Each structure stands twice: as structure tokens, then as C-alpha cells.
């Protein structure tokens, strides 16, 4: 699964970002019926609203490597995620937060084994909504990080994964 893809791409810092992005696109497509913009559409994405970080979900992990995966979206994308996952209109704030947490959980669960050495076990903790005061760049100051921007037809998500660099291949 993930390891095989990483075996093919191992070595470069960019490959970890590529892996996160690939898993994120698959998660959004499968779970929320959202699709990446085509290359010919990316110029238009510069005008799209960007996440302001006001709502973020985090999934922490430990074991073979430790760190956290943080995702933030625009309000419109957040609403669409919840609505598409459940087939409902006008989801409540609680539902939207839960949906974002589950997306983070899925992306993290699929990504983290690729960051652990020798396929050793990582424990993924339940997702939670980050407090406004939490500055993850400071909290994880001793960790390596990858930041990716995921541009979808419904909006933009930002994902950052912080991880212990020496645990990676």
C-alpha cells in the first residue's frame, strides 16, 4: 500500500509532500466526491479563497514515529465536505467539525506508515479540533514538516504533517 508507493519515491523531501497530496486527493475524491482541478484550471485557482486557519483539525500519532497532521479548509469547502459525506444540506457546526476530523484521520492513517522506519507500528490518536491558541509550528519545533496545498473543485485545503525526521527512511 503506502509503503510500496514510498519505496518508489523514497529519498527526496518532495516525495513525502507528493505522498500526502496523493492520499489527500484520493480521500477527498472517494469520501466527498471532490476532484482535483485540472492543470488547465490551476491558473484560476489563484483567485480562490484560501484557508485562514480559523478551523483546523489535528490528528496526533506516536510509536515508530511521532508528530501530528493538521488540516484546515475554507468555510465553503468545510460545508461541502460534510454535506457530501452525509448527503445532507446545511450541516451543523458539530457535523462539519466531525467531518473535517474524519478526513484528517483518514489522510493521517494512510500517510503515517510511510513515514515510519521499516514499516513499524504507529498509533494514530483520535482527531480533534485544534484550539485557536495552538501554534503547531512552535509545538512541533523539533520536528520535520511537509506542507501541501490541495486544490479541489470545491475549494482549497491546507495540510501540514509534522514528524520525527530520524524515523523516516
Amino acid at each position, binding site marked *: 500500500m503506502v509503503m510500496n508507493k514510498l519505496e518508489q519515491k523514497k529519498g527526496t523531501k518532495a516525495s513525502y509532500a507528493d505522498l500526502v497530496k496523493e492520499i489527500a486527493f484520493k480521500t477527498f475524491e472517494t469520501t466527498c466526491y471532490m476532484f482535483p482541478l485540472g492543470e488547465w484550471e490551476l491558473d484560476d485557482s489563484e483567485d480562490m479563497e484560501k484557508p485562514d486557519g480559523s478551523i483546523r483539525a489535528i490528528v496526533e500519532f506516536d510509536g515508530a514515529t511521532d508528530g501530528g497532521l493538521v488540516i484546515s479548509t475554507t468555510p465553503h469547502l468545510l460545508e461541502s465536505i460534510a454535506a457530501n459525506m*452525509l448527503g445532507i444540506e446545511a450541516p451543523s457546526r458539530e457535523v462539519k467539525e466531525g467531518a473535517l476530523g474524519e478526513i484528517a484521520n483518514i489522510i493521517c*492513517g494512510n500517510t503515517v*506508515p510511510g513515514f515510519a522506519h521499516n514499516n513499524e507500528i504507529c498509533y*494514530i*490518536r*483520535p*482527531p480533534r479540533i485544534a484550539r485557536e491558541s495552538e501554534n503547531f509550528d512552535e509545538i512541533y519545533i523539533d520536528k520535520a514538516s511537509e506542507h501541501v496545498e490541495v486544490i479541489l473543485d470545491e475549494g482549497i485545503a491546507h495540510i501540514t504533517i509534522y514528524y520525527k525526521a530520524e524515523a523516516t527512511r
Partner: protein
Amino acid sequence: MSLNILIVDDCPIMRMVIRRTLNMCEFELGEVIEAGDGKEGLDWMKTIDFDFVVADLNMPVMTGAEMIATMRTDPKTDAIPVLAVSAESNDSRVNVISSLVNGFVHKPFRVEVLRDKIFKVLSKEAIIVKPKAEQ
């Protein structure tokens, strides 16, 4: 025959997705109960006779793996079919879990995939008879 089904997942949204998927299946539902962790799931099993359990693995308080292991040691629950639904991607852990359950659905999944897996598990355990056209 209506089926009593237990959904165990710490994420309310995923419980709603699974419940929605169950409603897409064409069998008669009895009690469909939701629990937020493995311990709560085991507590429900003391009061209701379930025909099927759909369980996440990564949960607080008691994980799905711990819940399933406990189920398999109790004569009242050891034969209940369990479908595990998880984003777990570590091959060795997936193999261990797969040996304890009747089916495994990896997240992310399409609801149609979950629906088909539910049918497959319940048909294999002879709990439902799937229409021939869908077999």
C-alpha cells in the same frame, strides 16, 4: 428477519455514514445502535443480541481491536460477525485484525464498497440470502 446491528465508531459522522449505508441495503433492520468506543460497544452487547457489528479500530477508551478480542472470548458474542472499518495501513496490523474479523474495509471507501462488503459478510455467515442477481 430483521437484523440488530451495532455501529462502533468514535466519529459521529462516520456512524452516520455507516447508518446511511445500512439503509441502502435491502434487508430489514431491527435495532441499529451506535456506540462511541469499544467499551460502550461491549456494554450494548450485554443488553441486546446483535446479528452484526461494524467497528472502527482507532478509538479512545477501548480500541476496536480490544473490543473484538474481548468479544471472541465471550460465548455470548464470539460468533457475531464483525466488519472492521479503518484507515489503518500498517500491513502487519491489518493482518492481525483481519484474522479476528469477518471482513475489513479500508478507509477511504465509497459507500457502495461498504454496502457490498456488508452483503458479502452477511451472506457468507448465512445471516441473509443475497438475491441471485447480485451474487
